[in-house]
């Protein structure tokens, strides 16, 4: 590739930026939406319908999600390709995180297309996305799929949390060892928070239900069957 030095720099910095903006912001939105599954099918489907009703949805999906992720991943592949891992010889904490960041990136390279094709584009394969809660519930009943989703959630959580730390260094925010150590802990706590809440949302689709510390909706079903179709509070967006 014949890139000028300036283009090279810009591409590398955009790779770093897209991981946070917009992909990281989208991840946060995605996690929040998923968490509505804790309130049951109606609450979850209502939020899904709201997202589907967003103006310029098509542009948001293309330029807010697809293009940035694809760009981040494409350059990420190049970054992974150029690395020569040496964790066996140098079993250091930061070196392990370096490798894990790349491993989770590659894992997501496979998980995200699988996830998107079987949910957003499930209709291509004869599925119905009318009731997304039911679709997810059905999919996650398979223990293998569930395990795959847990792996995907954990990979995305770590990649984002640890990526924030790398982002802060690449953008010149953390300029000393002490600051880097401090914020490395914060980044890993963010990763942990995303991981736990992400898995909790997955559990919400299962027979046991997730741990719901805040009652999202008083009307939502509780106890053993949180996913049972509950009456929507405002009457709209109920399971169709």
């Amino acid at each position, binding site marked *: 590739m014949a890139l000028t030095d*300036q283009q090279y720099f810009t591409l590398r910095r955009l790779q770093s930026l897209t991981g946070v903006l917009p992909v990281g912001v989208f991840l946060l939105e995605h996690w929040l939406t998923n968490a509505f599954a804790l309130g049951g099918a109606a609450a979850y489907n209502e939020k899904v319908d709201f997202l589907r009703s967003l103006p310029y949805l098509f542009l948001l999906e293309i330029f807010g999600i697809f293009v940035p992720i694809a760009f981040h991943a494409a350059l990420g592949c190049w970054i992974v390709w150029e690395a020569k891992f040496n964790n066996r010889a140098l079993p250091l904490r930061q*070196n392990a995180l*370096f490798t894990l960041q790349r491993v989770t990136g590659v894992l997501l390279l496979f998980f995200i297309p699988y996830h998107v094709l079987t949910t957003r584009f499930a209709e291509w394969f004869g599925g119905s996305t009318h009731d997304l809660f039911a679709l997810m519930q059905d999919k996650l009943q398979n223990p293998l799929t569930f395990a795959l989703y847990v792996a995907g959630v954990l990979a995305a959580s770590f990649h984002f949390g640890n990526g924030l730390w790398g982002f802060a260094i*690449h953008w010149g925010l*953390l*300029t000393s060892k002490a600051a880097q150590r401090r914020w490395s802990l914060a980044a890993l706590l963010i990763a942990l928070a995303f991981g736990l809440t992400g898995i909790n949302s997955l559990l919400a689709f299962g027979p046991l239900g997730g741990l719901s510390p805040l009652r999202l909706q008083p009307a939502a079903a509780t106890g053993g069957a949180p996913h049972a179709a509950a009456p929507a509070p405002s009457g709209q967006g109920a399971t169709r």
Partner: protein
Amino acid sequence: MRREIVLKIQRQERPGAPAAWQEFRLPYRPRLNLIACLQEIARRPVDAAGRAVTPIAYESACLEEVCGSCSMRVNGVPMQACSTLVDNLPDGTITLEPLSKFPLVRDLIVDRTPMFEGLKRVRGWIPIEGTYDLGPAPRRAPAEQGEAYDYSRCMTCGCCMEACPNFSGHAPERFVGPAPLGQAYYFLLNPTGRMEEGERLEALMGRGGITACGNAQNCAAVCPKEIPLTDAIARLNRQVNRRWLARLFGG
């Protein structure tokens, strides 16, 4: 407690020749460093099986961790053979291998030219000579002198380059590596060096420059002189970004 020293050394006669392991046994003596072991073998080049072998080729000069020439991988980790004491290594066989990121010359000797090329690339020097008297250097704050001192200790041994997962002397265009970055920062700290700030930062912003750092942070961990290379890289990041943004929004 070891009674004898068992050294497993990677031998290679010339570039491209097949590499092979040879084992050597030496009687234990306290406070031996690895160069002393290699000198011992050089005096009597006989391997553990009793076969006479060619003496091991290795580089060393100062024997006090100042010249940086005896870098090698000890049990897989790059370090200086002169300042590494056998007593401080875990019991059992000690493996010695040449640095893997640089072209091999023979046995434990590598050609560290890619690192020196990297120093040229980032303008790792200060122009102090002219056709006229440039006058005395500007005064510097003691705190700045203190910070610069850390980086002045670099002996271009190449340990950081070896430990870096993103650097390879076999493809140096991919990443210039931590040692030249540390020196770029060092010369940017210097008031005279700052006069070339633009050229130096531009060199860092190119392909294989500072953006190719992946924050594995092995460089600072293995540096025998404990140079805070990761601080240098982070601070350079701030400088190159400021320059990039200034150009993006300022013209």
